[in-house]
C-alpha cells in the first residue's frame, strides 16, 4: 500500500509542478489565477496523501485550512482585480 501512496504523492507533485509552471508563465492574468487555484487544490490533496504515507494522518486540519485559504485568496484576487487597471 505504501508503494501506491508514494506513487500518488509523486504524481500529485508532478501535477503541482505543471500548475506552478502555468502560474509562472501565463499568457493572461486569468490563466495565472487558474494555475494558482489548481496548485492550491492539488496541495490539499497532497497534504492528505502525504499524511497517510508518513503514517501520521492526524494532520488533516492543515488540509482544511489550505482549502479555505485557497478559496479566500481566489475571491480576494477577483475582488481587487476590479480595482487594478490592467496593463496591456
Amino acid at each position, binding site marked *: 500500500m505504501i508503494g501506491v501512496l508514494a506513487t500518488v504523492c509523486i504524481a500529485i507533485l508532478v501535477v503541482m509542478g505543471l500548475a506552478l509552471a502555468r502560474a509562472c508563465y501565463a499568457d493572461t492574468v486569468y490563466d495565472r489565477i487558474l494555475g494558482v487555484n489548481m496548485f492550491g487544490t492539488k496541495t490539499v490533496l497532497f497534504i492528505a496523501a502525504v499524511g497517510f504515507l*508518513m503514517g*501520521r494522518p*492526524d*494532520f488533516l486540519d492543515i488540509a482544511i485550512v489550505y482549502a479555505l485559504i485557497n478559496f479566500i485568496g481566489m475571491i480576494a484576487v477577483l475582488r481587487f482585480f476590479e480595482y487594478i487597471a490592467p496593463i496591456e
Partner: protein
Amino acid sequence: MSFILDYYNYWVVVFLMMTGFYIVISANNLVKKIAGLNIFQTSVFMLYISMGKVTGGTAPIVVEGVELYSNPLPHVLILTAIVVGVATTSVGLALIIRIKRAYGTVEENEFKNSDDAI
C-alpha cells in the same frame, strides 16, 4: 553524496535568503521590496525548522508507541515569529500607502528625486 544530503537543506535556505535579499536591494518598487523581505523572512523560518528536524522523528505531538520527536522549541519560536512577521508587514504596507499619498509614487528613485527638489 552524504555530504550533500547533510547540507542541501541549508544551501537552499541560503539561496532563498539571497533571492529575497537581491529583491530588497535591487527592486525599485516598494511593494516588491516588501515581497522580497517576506521571502527573506520565510527562509529564516525554514532555517530554524530545518535545525529542529530529527531524521526518523515525528511531529512533536505525543502518540503511543513513538519515542523520537523533532525538537519543539524552534517550532514555538517560529510560530509566533510568523504572526509578528505579518503584523510588521502590514505596518510596512500601511507606510507604503501613505508614501503613495504623499509623493504620488511608490518607485524609490522617483520620490528620492522629488525629495531633492524640495
